[in-house]
């Protein structure tokens, strides 16, 4: 049976154009290794350095967002579920690279997250830069892991508008996913 499952999974990855995927608890070491792997893959394909940089940068921001969110949830009763719920895929479809990631979020965090993305998703590059420069200068709450501008940075480096979805799982947690194309 196990070989059937593996082959099905492999076929599914191939059909979706997925080159690299990871599901589970993100660590800095895993992020560094996967980041290196995608960089090397793109180098062998002779992709422009600029595209490699953007794919790598979006990958780092997405996975750090998941990791930082998990750290924020350390006291939550949903911590274990959230910590193991991360997934990232990097692939190529119709000549363009995509970076897709997802994780569980507490329902109370869904609205602010959606608001944040809706605010930036249709801004042009000039307005995104303005917003980035304003927000990166803002004071952070004590204990913050990031600068609070990861999503804006992702939008600035994305070729097309960010796609995202939020699916309610059980009335307490929702699955958030985001897709960015370079």
């Amino acid at each position, binding site marked *: 049976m196990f070989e059937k499952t593996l082959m099905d999974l492999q076929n599914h990855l191939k059909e979706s154009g997925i080159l690299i995927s990871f599901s589970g608890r993100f660590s800095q070491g895993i992020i560094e290794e996967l980041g*290196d792997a995608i960089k090397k893959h793109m180098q062998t394909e002779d992709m422009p*350095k600029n595209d490699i*940089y953007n794919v790598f940068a979006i990958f780092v921001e997405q996975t750090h967002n998941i990791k930082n969110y998990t750290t924020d949830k350390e006291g939550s009763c949903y911590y274990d579920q959230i910590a193991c719920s991360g997934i990232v895929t990097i692939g190529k479809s119709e000549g363009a690279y995509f970076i897709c990631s997802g994780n569980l979020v507490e329902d109370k965090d869904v609205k602010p997250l959606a608001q944040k993305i809706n605010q930036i998703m249709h801004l042009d590059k000039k307005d995104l830069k303005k917003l980035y420069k304003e927000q990166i200068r803002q004071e952070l709450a004590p204990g913050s892991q990031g600068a609070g501008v990861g999503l804006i940075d992702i939008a600035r480096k994305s070729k097309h508008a960010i796609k995202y979805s939020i699916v309610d799982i059980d009335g307490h947690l929702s699955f958030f996913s985001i897709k960015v194309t370079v």
Partner: protein
Amino acid sequence: MEKLYIEQTKGTPKIDFDPDANILVLWGQSYPENSFNFYEPIFNWVDCYLVECNAAMRIKVNLSYVNTSSSKCILMLLDKFEKAHQNGTSITLDWYYDIENESELECAEEFEEDITFPFNIIPLSQEI
């Protein structure tokens, strides 16, 4: 004052701040697990150095990738240098970038925007 030296890793740049030569080198990539933890000792060192420093200083930077939380830290670092410059310290910054990567150039240009001391953006002819 003691030199500040931090070895380069995959996610953190080499830090080589020499108070005797007045040369501060920041070289590599920056996307640490926790940027604020990584940069805190660097901020502290620079605060002490800027109080003691009474000669012209030169900063050399090459950051082939900076994530957003590191960018915030780099801005905080540049603010310290800018303030020292306003108070009369002579500061020159050389920011090296890969000529084949316009993202690196844009990143350097964006850091330059709020700076008034000499900020030279220099192409690296080959990868180091």
